[in-house]
């Protein structure tokens, strides 16, 4: 026994003359590396558990009857815990949205890209300010709609136009357009 221990020690000494590290260094590194990998395997599910759960994820699609919304008015529906704005735009509002020079916008999108062809009167956006997530005002005609007749976010003063595009204030992006399609002329399916 003691002889073996002796040899072990000798090895250590022999090895340290060159700069190659000892067997013990190797064992420590290997153990630490395995530990790190093991920790990684643990951290992954922990972080995953913080991500949206399956029921939250289940992309609840909502079907909305929009037939009852008269021109110039809007409705709000909930989708994934967020409000979705559906506005029935007037001729004037559509023209205002189309007349803008896209180059001058912060988030450069033309009105055509934000509505469905042939259904330009319907604008569907997620009603969450792209700055820090407040719900902008402007769904009711009596609301303050900001300087561009769309929506006004009172939290930090972002103003959106009749296409839901950011025109003024700190928000970096246009109001999101959620995935949606027309089931028929008066029904849309969001999600």
């Amino acid at each position, binding site marked *: 026994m003691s002889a073996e221990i002796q040899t072990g020690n000798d090895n250590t000494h022999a090895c340290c003359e060159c700069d190659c590290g000892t067997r013990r260094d190797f064992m420590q590194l290997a153990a630490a590396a395995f530990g790190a990998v093991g920790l990684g395997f643990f951290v992954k599910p922990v972080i995953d558990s913080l991500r*949206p759960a399956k029921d*939250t994820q289940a992309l609840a699609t909502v079907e909305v009857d929009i037939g009852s919304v008269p021109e110039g008015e809007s409705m709000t529906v909930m989708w994934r815990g967020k409000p979705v704005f559906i506005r029935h735009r007037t001729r004037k509002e559509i023209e205002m949205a189309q007349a803008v020079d896209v180059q001058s916008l912060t988030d450069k999108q033309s009105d055509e890209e934000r509505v469905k062809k042939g259904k330009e009167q319907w604008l569907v956006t997620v009603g969450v300010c792209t700055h820090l997530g407040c*719900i902008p005002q402007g769904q009711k005609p009596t609301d303050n709609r900001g300087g561009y007749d769309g929506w006004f976010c009172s939290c930090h003063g972002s103003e959106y136009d009749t296409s839901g595009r950011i025109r003024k204030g700190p928000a*970096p992006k246009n109001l999101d357009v959620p995935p949606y399609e027309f089931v028929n002329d008066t029904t849309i399916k969001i999600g």
Partner: protein
Amino acid sequence: MGSANREKFDNTVVEWIDSRMPIFTILNKEYGVFPTPRNFNYFWNFGAIAMFMLMTMIITGIILAMHYTADTKLAFDSVERIMRDVNGGWLLRYIHMNGASFFFIAVYIHMFRGIYYGSYKKPRELLWILGVIIFLLMMATAFIGYVLPWGQMSLWGATVITNLFSAVPFVGNWIVETLWGGYSVDNPTLTRFFALHFLLPFVIFAVVFLHVWALHVSGSNNPLGIEPKGPQDTLPFNPYYTAKDTFGLVVFMVAYAFFIFFAPDFLGHPDNYIPADPLVTPAHIVPEWYFLPFYAILRAVTFSINWYLIIGAGLCAYAFIKWMTKNKERESFFVKEYMVFVLPALFLFVLGAVIAFIPVSEQQFVDGELQYVGIARIIEGIRYYFTFDFLIPDSIRGTTEAVEMRVAIDALLIPISAKLGGVLAMFGSIALLIVLPWLDSHPVRSARFRPLFRIFVLLFTVSVGILGYAGSQPADKVYWSTCLGDAVACEALAHGGHGAGAEHHSDASATTIIKLDNTMLAQAFTGFYFAFFLIIIPLLGRFEKARALPYSIHEAVLGKEQRAGV
């Protein structure tokens, strides 16, 4: 924790325990006979007061947690039940609610003390950094706690603040969804916030332990900022400072109790007594008062930051550091560095500012040509060349292709959006506290002997207060405005104008409105906040002449004639 040269205790039970685990010896050493400078003023009370507040929060918090339900459907009602039905529940909640405010009052005074008397300097840097970590943990704890009652401010405050992280490039949305556990602040968010709100105070407790440990290695600073030279400069902690701390604590508690019993909701916001509604944002979201200065800094960055500004700032910083660390012989340095770094930097600043601050004017086409007049022409010229607009071939202008090119160029030209810039400024404002010991190279600690430093620290304190005020007001609030130009057009504008800063209105081009609004106020004082740490403190560190320091604490306290006697 050596028990080697332990003194015996008379009480046999105490002695029995202490000989097995010398806890009484340690307590006596650290809190009994611990040598403490004899010249503390009342600013030195606030550490003990903060400790008391932490214990108060933990005790009341645990009892509240016994009655509280973390579920979006039940949380608001469970807090109302605490207020109405739980015996003494209203008192516990008001103690906890106002306790958060008074905890921050104590800690802010404690931090002011540290800056004013130079307690962050060697050898107390680590002690100071641990303090800043406690401050950060407190902010996290208080923010998360405010979400628990699930009122309107809870929900929307949480929404606005968690959304800040979406500014992080590439992974922003992933981070935010991971924080939320969903696609908006909702039940999964509330439950995890409750778990964290329960945990974090105990983490704070652990860091406070480290903080006090570091304190007991270096010993306390004092109003003179000079080290004790011997026993004549110190007093045993007990009974001198236990008594003084207790007295200060009682005075503090009187003020605290006044709020608990007579103005319990004064420091809060009435909207938090409206149950959270994900469809309606309150007209004016304000955080709790103790976050307001940082909230103002966050909102002050309303402009995106392009490479011109960053490189300009980098050049200035480089020249500044070079100049600060130059050796005295190289006198010509200033002129040379000025030409090589500062002039190009100024040029870059002008370019960057034109691109970042002056909004793209409404473009008018006449016969298919863009029309600009006067100064607008120069500005558009700068914009045309320096935002690389000329790269876009004229033949594709107006098409989506051109728009895509513009977006791609902007992505390269502007690395920091306004939103990210605000977040960086806010966290940066606290990060500066961490590096403060290295920004200030002045050998004298106490502001008493640094007349200029003293003035600037007081100005800094006032400006943090003004930032707090700015944070509480709507961003577009106008303090002062005047309209230059055509009187009739001005009259018309007075009934419908909006916007910030000096601005040309295309519909009334004969007028210019000059305004001082809340955003500009916040910007000015945010500028001073950063200048204080990054310019004033380093400059004073190098150039300020301090007054003569007293020979020792006890000489300063008792007068010179006593010196000979000791």
